[in-house]
């Protein structure tokens, strides 16, 4: 394969994995509440700001020894995930739970309102300009420095880091939902909350757990964003969130594997569009893809066609 194409694929994959983390949050919440949680992108944005603040507070700088760096990153990861999870579950409590029995439009509007509020929190907290962060993880090519390959294709330590954080999270989540009792309760609640209640499932708790998981994943994605893309800004959540939501729809919303696949596909589309077309058209292409998917295959790549049997 052409080395340039390969390089674009690698960039696309790394970005795609971050999309996947956020997309999972959309898909989990949509699955259980049939709600497009517009505020989810903002949780990711705030997650990245929390991570940035923690990294700076702990004095993480480039050139620290590897063990300290890893330990500190893990600490920041856990704290960021925890705070984001708490934030997300609080959003559910304030903006969505009181609307459990309202028509579908109400929580959607509430989500849009929540998204405005959180954007402004970011704006007030960190100001209107983009914040940068240094390369904690080296950008050097693993293939040449470790494996000694003679190639211009680069897989950086940063990209390995993205994979090292996201892939285990994705595996744990998929095991949790398909195999554990609580995971099955989530699936049951997603299908029919009233009946789930009649089975002895605590519906409110199950929904709260879903938001905790979604928030934690968004927090993890926020840290990855800071360490991989080195930047955040108050308006990051909207654009990134739309990409992630597109990923979820692309894969078939409500479907966990679909969200991951959709994220990766979208990462690739982004990377190829940036590289071979022009960056200013990338958003138009992303939305074009979104519209095309919804029109021609609304159930997404992996979504089941609804079996409407008489």
């Amino acid at each position: 394969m052409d080395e340039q194409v390969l390089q674009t694929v690698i960039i696309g994959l790394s970005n795609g994995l971050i999309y996947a983390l956020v997309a999972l949050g959309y898909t989990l919440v949509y699955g259980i509440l049939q709600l497009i949680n517009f505020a989810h992108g903002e949780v990711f944005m705030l997650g990245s700001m929390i991570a940035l603040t923690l990294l700076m507070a702990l004095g993480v700088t480039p050139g620290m020894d590897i063990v300290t760096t890893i330990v500190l990153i893990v600490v920041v990861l856990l704290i960021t995930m925890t705070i984001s999870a708490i934030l997300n579950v609080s959003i559910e409590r304030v903006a969505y739970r009181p609307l459990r029995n309202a028509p579908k439009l109400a929580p959607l509007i509430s989500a849009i309102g929540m998204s405005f509020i959180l954007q402004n929190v970011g704006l007030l907290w960190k100001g209107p300009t983009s914040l940068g962060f240094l390369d904690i993880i080296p950008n050097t090519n693993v293939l040449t420095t470790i494996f000694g390959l003679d190639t211009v294709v680069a897989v950086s330590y940063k990209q390995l880091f993205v994979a090292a954080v996201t892939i285990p999270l994705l595996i744990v989540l998929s095991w949790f939902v398909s195999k554990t009792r609580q995971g099955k309760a989530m699936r049951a609640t997603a299908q029919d909350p009233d009946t789930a209640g009649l089975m002895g499932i605590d519906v409110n708790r199950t929904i709260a757990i879903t938001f905790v998981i979604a928030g934690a994943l968004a927090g993890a994605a926020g840290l990855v964003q800071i360490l991989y893309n080195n930047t955040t800004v108050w308006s990051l959540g909207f654009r990134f969130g739309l990409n992630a939501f597109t990923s979820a729809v692309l894969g078939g919303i409500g479907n966990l594997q679909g969200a991951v696949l959709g994220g990766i596909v979208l990462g690739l589309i982004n990377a190829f569009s940036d590289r071979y077309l022009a960056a200013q058209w990338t958003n138009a292409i992303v939305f074009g893809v979104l519209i095309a998917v919804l029109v021609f295959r609304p159930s997404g790549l992996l979504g089941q066609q609804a079996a409407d049997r008489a």
Partner: protein
Amino acid sequence: MALLELEDVHTYYGAIHALRGVSLKVEEGEIVTLIGSNGAGKSTTLRTISGLLRPRQGEIRLRGKRIDGHKPHEIVEMGVSQSPEGRRVFARMNIQENLEMGAFARKDRGGLAAEYDRIYDLFPRLRERRLQNAGTLSGGEQQMLAIGRALMAAPRVLLLDEPSMGLAPILVEQIFDIIRTINERGTTVLLVEQNALMALGIARRGYILQTGEVVLSDSAAKLRTDPAVRKAYLGED
């Protein structure tokens, strides 16, 4: 002390006064049936007992202990489970998983294996299709699954909401046979039915519900011969 007791229960949907002071009793080991037209408040009564709706007034007691105001999942833990109207099986989960969900509230995980066996003995068709998604079952099979799922909680009182709805006459007979069997094995049943004839056939006592109120209650045998009941619910002139 009655096993399950409702006293002057009032339930609203928004501004609509759906139950207007319903009182009824279910004694240990009975089948009690609740009869009435659509809109009379039968399902509302069951939904209120199960905690899906909160009564605005009145008390619901299980063995003398109040259960109203509790969440649905807590009420299941206390020993009341329901097979809801329209079956409502988890279509994208298989039969085994559906039954597993039915047992969600049970503390004694050890007894589960035996419970599965009991359910599958009661409904052999379900055993054959254990790993099949519930959405692909026929209406009768789904009804069996819904009842089996409710039984997995090992309830003291089983609430059945319109188990014969939309089923062929031949299946209706089967379902009623099963209800009788379940009762004979020791489960108390509160049965909501449109098919008054069949319901009064297996119940010991019955309540007639109209516009959210109990207008008549008596032994099933007496209700079967009551002229007003015969005219309105059994279709005789």
